[in-house]
């Protein structure tokens, strides 16, 4: 068993887990943060995407013990002051989700992407979310949502 401490959404969180505990299970089952979803457990669907030190990674392809001490942002940590973030609002405004299962992965991915590319082209957006599967929306409104989020972020200012 290993002591693992992560800074999750700005708060240090600790649990004692076996080395094989996947980061996705650590967040969901050891820390009770069930917003991160598990859709395939082989790194293809992207539902489990979280930000590790700010960069999107597959939580299902990461051992928690290996990233002890690092910062993790999950979908639960995207809101600011209790209000949904621009990316979250963009998805709600543009009907960018249906069943919502893949949505946390898209939200975390888009959050990091728009931080680095505040004024993206259509191609940029498509490339950015190209590693996340959605079975409900046909992606039309997801692309729209990311563009809308960029607008909302621009309105918010720095």
């Amino acid at each position, binding site marked *: 068993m*290993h002591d693992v401490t992560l800074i999750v959404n700005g708060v240090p969180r600790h649990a004692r887990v*076996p*080395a*094989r505990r*996947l980061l996705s*299970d650590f967040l969901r089952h050891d820390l009770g943060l069930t917003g991160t979803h598990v859709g395939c*457990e*082989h*790194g293809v669907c*992207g539902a489990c*995407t979280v930000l*590790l030190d700010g*960069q*999107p*990674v*597959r939580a*299902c*392809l*990461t*051992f928690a*013990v*290996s*990233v002890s001490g690092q910062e993790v942002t999950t979908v639960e940590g995207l809101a600011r002051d209790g209000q949904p973030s621009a990316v979250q609002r963009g998805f709600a405004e543009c009907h960018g989700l249906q069943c919502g299962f893949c949505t946390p992965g898209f939200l975390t*991915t888009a959050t990091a992407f728009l931080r680095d590319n505040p004024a993206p082209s259509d191609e940029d957006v498509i*490339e*950015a979310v*190209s*590693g996340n599967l959605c079975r409900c929306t046909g992606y039309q409104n997801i692309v729209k949502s990311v563009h809308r989020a960029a607008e909302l972020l621009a309105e918010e200012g720095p």
Partner: protein
Amino acid sequence: MKPPSFVYHAPATVAEAVEALAAAGADGKVLAGGQSLIPLMNMRLAAPGHLVDINHVAGLAGITAEPGGVRVGALARHAEVEASETAHAAQPLVRRALRLVAHPAVRNRGTTVGSIVHADPAAEMPAVLALLDGSVRVRGAEGERDIPAAEFFTGPMESSLRTGELAVSVFFPSSEGGTAIVEMARRHGDYAMAGVAALVAPDHARVACLSVGAVPVVVDVTEAEGDWRRAARLVQEQIDPEADIHATADYRRHLTGVLTERALKAAADA
């Protein structure tokens, strides 16, 4: 789909890592990005008894210019290498190829050295290393050695890395002339059904093909003298693709020809 148990080692230095690997023997595996290893473990297709996690080893993340090329450390993530101006200045093919590797989130965690050591003949970076005639630097109990790409890849998912050895870096040589890589995957980001990396220098031309053999297949096409259609035929004669559920062997051979011509043209124009 949960991985089996293993003994976890988190060395802080290369020496400790090599020691842990040597002790584990054939039952040991290196964990760097884990983007190829962990899916196999989750599916219980791999069950190493010992994992030597090198993520906390100092001094492995470098991307450094060296005479005649760029050296990429074992902990440099694909995304870092892709973004690196040092790497790009030394060998622009590296960035172009990395953009074809899986998806951004996988590139944020996966390492370029890990991808090469994994030695998947369908992967881009082994082909790039083979095309450029680069090398892999490995450290073992007996010290350090550089393995040229031509000797490194020995079979599908097999390399000449010995038990107990750790790949600490790879070296991508700069090249005179132009380079290019083109591939065709079923979906964007998938392993390619066929792909060709090409190098066209003033005095010679060659290609490295992926997904058409047990290892990246390098073919010298200098004799085609700039007739890239002829070069494509030369390549088609030298490859022995296999069928899988995504493509027949015939189609792979055909596609490799088409892509060879396209890659060589692009390299010549680069």
